[in-house]
Structure formats: structure tokens, C-alpha cells
């Protein structure tokens, strides 16, 4: 479903270019859950961004469902994200002027495939029932992250990319959010790749990959 081959990315910095990713290769099957662990700056986030089409690699190939995405233009990559990929961020990134219900439905509506029953079911499972009319600022951090997960899953993505989604949450809430995410990914058959610095959370994934100085190591 996802195959990454010889991916290289270099960022400029004040001390000269930094090789963030060095010839990284990776294959992920549908329904698989993969934890990317590693230090801050090891290249986890960059890998996620490249797979999500938010950024372009310097070299290498990313094939998502058979499509080479690093060659696509901005609009095509945006369409791919909209239709196939779900992104969950540490900062939740909700739209403050939309209600919880509107935020959850946003990506599905952008993609033009709103499944009302699925969204209602999802909202129920995320424990957000009854909060639909509230605005994000009226929710706790855990609730906001659940809204963000709901927004991603409402669209039934084939691939969920999560970048430290529990980083802003306390341990208990983080565990609950992760359970939801893993469960829902399984329900929808989506592949899940999550970057985390927590070995404890990584234990719950079917595969664990350690990122060290831009290279992957099986953990």
C-alpha cells in the first residue's frame, strides 16, 4: 500500500546542510500499525511530512496505493491528502470558528463524501456525543485531539499519519486517545503510522521502527 524507497531529504541550517533522512526505505501494508520512535530531530516528523505530501524529498520514491506522489504537483498532492490520507498533529489544528461537529465533518465534506451515519457512530465512539455544538476552545486538550482524530477518520482514509498526537496530553488521556486511534484504524482497515518518542506507547503497535540520524532501524 505504501512503499518508500531510498528517500533522502536535506535541510539547510546555519551550520551547513543537515541530512535529515538518508536513503530511507520502508513498506507498509493496509491495516498495519507502525510506530516511529526516535529522538527529537531524528527525522520522524520529516518522514511523515514527506509521506503526507506536505513536503518534497530530494531524492527517492514514495508510492502510495501505486501512485508515485513525490512527482505530483501541489494541487494533486492536496487531492491525495484530501481523499486518501488522514493527518493528526500534536497541536490538534482544529478550525476555531467551526463547531466540533463541523470540524469532524470538514475533511469528508472537502472530499465530497459525507457518510452521516459513520460520522454519528464515530462521534459516539470518540465520546464526543453531546459536544457537537461546542467550539474547540470550550473543550479540554484530550477532547480536542479526539475531534482531530474524528476529522481524520470521518473521511475513511487508507493511511493515517499521526505526529506525536498525545504529546500535549497527560498519560491517561494519551493512552485513551491512542486506544481509540488504533481501534478505529483497525475498524476501517487503515494503515497507521505514528511518530512518538514514547517506547511505552510504541509497544502497542504491530511494528516498531526506530529512527536514528536519518536512518531506520528495526526496533
Amino acid at each position, binding site marked *: 500500500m505504501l512503499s518508500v524507497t531510498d528517500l533522502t531529504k536535506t535541510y539547510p541550517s546555519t551550520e551547513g546542510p543537515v541530512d535529515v533522512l538518508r536513503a530511507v526505505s520502508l513498506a507498509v501494508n493496509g491495516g498495519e500499525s507502525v510506530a516511529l520512535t526516535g529522538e527529537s530531530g531524528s527525522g520522524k516528523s520529516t518522514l511523515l511530512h514527506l509521506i503526507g505530501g506536505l513536503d518534497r524529498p530530494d531524492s527517492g520514491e514514495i508510492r502510495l496505493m501505486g501512485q508515485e506522489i513525490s512527482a505530483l504537483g501541489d494541487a494533486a498532492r492536496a487531492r491525495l*491528502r484530501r481523499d486518501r490520507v488522514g493527518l493528526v498533529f500534536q497541536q490538534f489544528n482544529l478550525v476555531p470558528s467551526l463547531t466540533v461537529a463541523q470540524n469532524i465533518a470538514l475533511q469528508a465534506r472537502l472530499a465530497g463524501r459525507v457518510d452521516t451515519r459513520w460520522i454519528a457512530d464515530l462521534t459516539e465512539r470518540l465520546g464526543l456525543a453531546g459536544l457537537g455544538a461546542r467550539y474547540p476552545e470550550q473543550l479540554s486538550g484530550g477532547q480536542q485531539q479526539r475531534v482531530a482524530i474524528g476529522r481524520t477518520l470521518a473521511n475513511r482514509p487508507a493511511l493515517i499519519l499521526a505526529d506525536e498526537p498525545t504529546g500535549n496530553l497527560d498519560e491517561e488521556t494519551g493512552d485513551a486517545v491512542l486506544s481509540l486511534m488504533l481501534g478505529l484504524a483497525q475498524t476501517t482497515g487503515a494503515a497507521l503510522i505514528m511518530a512518538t518518542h514514547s517506547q511505552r506507547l510504541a509497544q502497542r503497535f504491530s511494528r516498531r521502527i526506530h529512527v536514528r540520524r536519518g536512518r531506520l532501524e528495526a526496533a
Partner: protein
Amino acid sequence: MPAFLTLLSHWRRHPGQLATLILGLALATALWSGVQAINEEARQSYARAAATLGANGYERLEAPGGGPVRREDYIALRRAGWLVSPVIRGRMDIGGESWRVMGVEPLTAPPDTLPRTNERGEVDPSAFLTGAGQAFVADGTEIDPDRRISLEFIPHPDVAPGLILTDIAVAERMLGQSDPTFLILLPDQPAGLPDLASVTDLVRVQAESGEDLSRLTDSFHLNLTAFGFLSFAVGLFIVHATIGLAFEQRRPVFRTLRAIGLPLSRLITALVVEVTLIALLAGAIGVMLGYLVAAALLPDVAGTLRSLYGAEIAGALAFRPLWAGVGLGIALVGAWLSAAQALWKVARMPLLAAAQPRAWAMASARSMRGQAVAGAALLAVSLATAVFGTGLVMGFLCLGALLLGAALLLPGALSLALRGIAARLHGPLAEWVIADTRQQLPGLSLALMALLLALAANIGVSTMVGSFRLTFLGWLDQRLVSELYVTAADNDEAAEIRAFLAPMTDATLPIAQTETRVEGRPVSVYGIVDHATYRDHWPLLETIPDVWERLSQGAVVLVNEQMARGKGLSLGDPVRLAPDLSLPVGGVYSDYGNPTGQAIVSLDLLERHFAPIDQSRTAVRIDPEQRQTVIAAIEAAFDLPEGAVVDQESVKRASIRVFEQTFRVTGALNILTLGVAGFALLASLMTLSTMRLPQVAPLWALGETRARLARIEVVKTLALVVLTWGVALPVGLALAWVLLAVVNVEAFGWRLPMQVFPRDWLWLLSLSMFSSTLAAGYPALGLLRTPPSQLLKVFSNER
């Protein structure tokens, strides 16, 4: 569509911001389009005056040295086969108002000089041609009955306002002039005529086409337009600031939308559509407001144009779809301009950039330096145009560069001033206050620049008007020395009145006057007798020695400042007043408020060289104590209508009334502009206040009360406003100088000494302090009411 609705949802959550944006844009559009509506109405009036009924739209023949055309010349031309038609034209005061009288000869005039019929079909040609007389006037015209004329006035839509269009025989009776002022040269002439030059020495003059009026009033309209643009610019400051804020606040949303699959091009399209929709809504409101502004100001503008230039414009405003379209267009362009920078930023925003809302419009020290350099360059341009430029457009360029340059320099100047204050202050709180104010400065600078523009314009214009007023009053005292002014029905009655008054007064001075043209431009020529009244009081600016003696000998002419400046005349330069009368300039006198050239010669010369002269008015010098007695005596001896005898005081009052009316529009626009600037400040403070919590919360945590913090907020704003006022003061005075020494000279033809009015400045300071207290008070009140939990949130998450 979901993306667009998501963008719009921002405004639903921030209705105040939306209101600010719409109101700002609507106000800007309103003032601009209001001014345009007034200008357009005036232009239409001028065009009507030239192109509608009456004889102005035709090529004409005039006497070579000005003055009337002899009737024999007219007959000679007709008998030679040339198709020409005589017109007697002049002005007449009826019911205290000055009317243009145009007498045409219907039998020979081109058909479109007179209405074919009025709306009710009640034009009686034989009544028009003879009898008591009929005259056409503009629709809606009201003329007070006057005993000197018994005319039937017929309103007609195609007659220009202020014009009495009648038969030549009626005009002859009204104006006491039997020789035509000019001849219309009909466009189609028979074949085989003798050369015009072999028949007559009259000169061909092109059709008027309203150019005289346009030229005269250009400066006034340019003035209005400048004000309109100033207001529009101030309004755009608001719009730019609000759009910038709205975009900054939504940066995370833009990023999220793109992350979840919205292509950049569609995001930009949605934002452009959003700005366009808002601009259309605001533009529509603005155009409606503009119409109201114009309708409210138009009567004053009409008064101004009449008293300054003798130009008649209709008092009612017509709604023109084209104008409304242009108003909407300018709102759109303004909004797009204001949004361009923000859109550019969105387009270039990297998808992975930190999504934190940066402080709104946080200008770096570097951009402030750049602004300062640009400002200094503009000031240099302003100075250069003031020194080297000529002409009205250059005058306004000078003004524009001055204002814009000063505005751009303002943030830097304020920053410097704050640094200077900080150096003198001690104590941690004071240091924090100054540091925090400087940090706030970039966010407030646009609003403060708008305030600077408005304050400077206010100071400049009120200094100009005030200087004008003082000078004008002094000049009136000088010029209006006679105790009584008597208007008779005609020259003969005036002579009888003078004879009657001679034994009981110190002097009776005929006011003898005629109209002529010098180098194609209209000039009034007055004839005076030798009397101390003139010698002691006439406001001469420049003079040769013994000018009054030389004048009474008929050796020199006095000209007013307008004429001297307009024709570049200096003492001793010859002026050709009539074909057979050319005199050197013996003196130049100030003549404020008069749009046209004026010349004074000895009465004797006037009578000899100008055939019909109006001597129906008389100035009377008496012991002021005797005033009532003499008035009673005149009224007993002569059957004079009301208003025929006026005393000096009434004339002064009337003159001052005209003066006040002249500047009422300027005053009104001034206040409106200041209002818009105040609103800009309020809008900026309101939006800034929403970002103030993170800055204020630490102070609160450190132990300052909310009340004290709120007070500090107000004081900081006041400090900025006072500093801005301090910068506006010299800018405003510079503005006044440019208005008085450059623009007025070009526009009106006279130069006034500049005077300063510190009391006005203080009043303006207190006004702006009051309004900024209001503006800062509301957000401060919000701070006061912020629950501690809200302040705590600053520490618990980063919003």
C-alpha cells in the same frame, strides 16, 4: 464550498472584526464617492450652463477691445448677408441674489437658444417677444418679486440654474444696455458672402462650452477631490489593518485546510471571493452613505461655488448609476489593494511553517527603518515641489508628499520618543510600560498614522480658514468704510438720490461699474471720484507714489490681486481696458472672495470709454450718529423697495455669512475625516486588545491588580496619541503654509498672511485625547472584567 464556508465562519465568530472591516471600507467609499457625486453634479451643472438653452454654445463675435458690440456693427453684418444674432448679457441683483440675465433675439437666434415650449405648452411667443415680457428660468427656481422688473418667469428643465433667459428687449430694459454684449455667429452661413474682415472689425471668439467656469472652479473641485482621497486613504488604513488581522488570525486554519487536502489555488480563490463579497457589501453601504453625505453637503457646496465663483449648480442631487458603479469599483479596488499584501503572504506561506499567530502586522525594526527612509524621501519631494513647483497640481503633490511622508516617519519618531522617555524613567513598572508600548507600536502604527493624517489635515485646514477669516475681516473693515449704501432703480434715480443727499451728508460716492474683457477674460471696471474715503482706506498691497492723484488724473489704473497675479501684472505694466483705453498699473489691492479680475479707473474715464455703465448704487459718507435720520429721509423722499438702503453693518454681516458658507464644506469634510481616523484608532485598539492577554497576564501574576493594569493600558494609548498630536502639529502648520502660499494663490489668485491659533490646537488635543480615552477605555474595561481563570489560561496552554 466547504472551504469557503469554513473561511466565512471566522467572521461569524468575530462579528466585531467584520463590522470594523465593512464600516471602514464603507466610510472610505462614502467620503470618496460623496465627493465624487458633488463634483459630478457640479460638472453637469457647468455643462448644462454651457450646452443647454441660451447662447453660450456658439461661436461668437465680440468687440476687439472688450465692451459691447455697437448695434450698427450688427446691422452691417446682417446687411452683408452674414447670419449673426445679438445677445445682451449681464448680471442683475434681484431679491438680494445675483442673477445672470441673457437676452436673445428670437428671430435671428439659432433655434436651440430658446425652449420650443414648456412642459405645459404655455409659451406665448408674442408675450415673449413684447408686452410685459417673459423669461425662462431653471426648474425649481424661485425669484423674489422686484419692482424694477415685471416679468413672467417660466420654469424650464433645460435652462441653467441662476440664468434668466429672455428676449433682448426685456434684457435691454433690465440691464439698461442697448448694444449687444456679443453676436452669435450661426454655424451655417449662405454661400458667396463677403469676407468677415471686410465687413466688420469684430473678433471671432470660440464657443464658451463652460470652460470658463470649469477653469475657475477646477481648484475647488481638486480641493474636494483631495479631501475625498485623504478620507479614502484613512479608510483604507482601517481596511488594511482589519484584513491583515483577519488573515493573521486564520494562518493556522489556512495551514490546517491545506494539510487536510485543500489546494493552495483554491484557498487563494476562496479568499479573493471572500474579500470581494465583503467589498461589494461595504461598497454598497458606502455608496448609499456617500449619496447621503453628498446630498447633505450639496447645498453648502452650491453656496460656496456661487459666492466664490458665481457658478450656479443645482441644489438637488441626481442619483447616477454610473457613479454608483464607480463607487462600488473603488471599494473593490481598495479592498483588493488592502488584501494584496495579506494574500501574497498566504500564497508564499510554507505549509510547514510554525502555525502560531504572530503578533499582528509585527513590523521589524528593519521595516520601520525602511519606512522612515521612504518618509524622509517623500518629505524631500514635498520640499522640492514647494520650492520649485508651480501650478495647482504641484501644490497638491506637495501636500500629498508632505502628509504621506510624515505618516511614514511617525512610527520611527514615536519609537525614538519612547526611547527618550525611557531613558528618563526609573522603576521596573515604568520600564515595562515603555517597553510594552514600544512593542505595541507596530500594531497601532497604522491607526496612529491615520490619526496623524486627520489631525494634520485638521490643523492645516483650520489654520488656513482661520487666517483667511482674520484677514478677510480686517479687509472688510478697511474696504467697507461708507456708512450707507443705496441702490436705485436706475442711473437717473441714483443721480436724483445723490443730489438729494448732498446737503445732509459728508459725501455721496457713485458706485459706477461696467463689465469688459481683458485678454479674453471677464473684468469688472469701477470708476471712482477722488475722495478721502478711498485714499485713507483702500487696501493697497503695492502702489506707486501719489497713486490717488494719478488715478484721479486718469493716468493709472488700479487692479485687484487676482488680476495682477493672473496676468502677471506689476506696477507700471500697461492694461488695455478698452480699444481706446490703455493705462499703466498704479497699484494692486487685495480683493478677497472675488473670483474675477477687477480694475479701478477714474469715474471720468469710465464714463468716457464705456457706453452704458451702471451707476445705480451710491455709497454715502455720513456721521454714523446721523444714520437713522438719513435713512428715514431717503425713504420718505423716494419710493425705494426694501433692501435698497443698507448700512455698513448689514453689508459686513452678509459678507461674513458668505464667507462662512464658503468654508462650511471644508469644515464638514474635516470633521468627517477626523471621525474616520478616530474610528480607525478604536478599531485597532479593539483588535489589539484581544492579543493583549499574554502580555498582561504575567504582570497580573506578578501582583499588579487588573484595575491598575487597565489604567496603564489607557495611559499608554493616551501617551501615543499625545505624541502623535505633537508630530501632527508641525505637519499641520506646514500643510497650512502650503495651502496659503501655494494652493490658494493658484486656486483663488490671492495670498494670505498665515496666522496661528494655539487654542484650536489645544482643543484638538483634548478632542483626540477624549476620543482615544473612549477607544482605549473599552478594551481596558474588558481587561478589568477578564476573569482570573482566563488570565490563567495564558499559562496553561498557548491558546
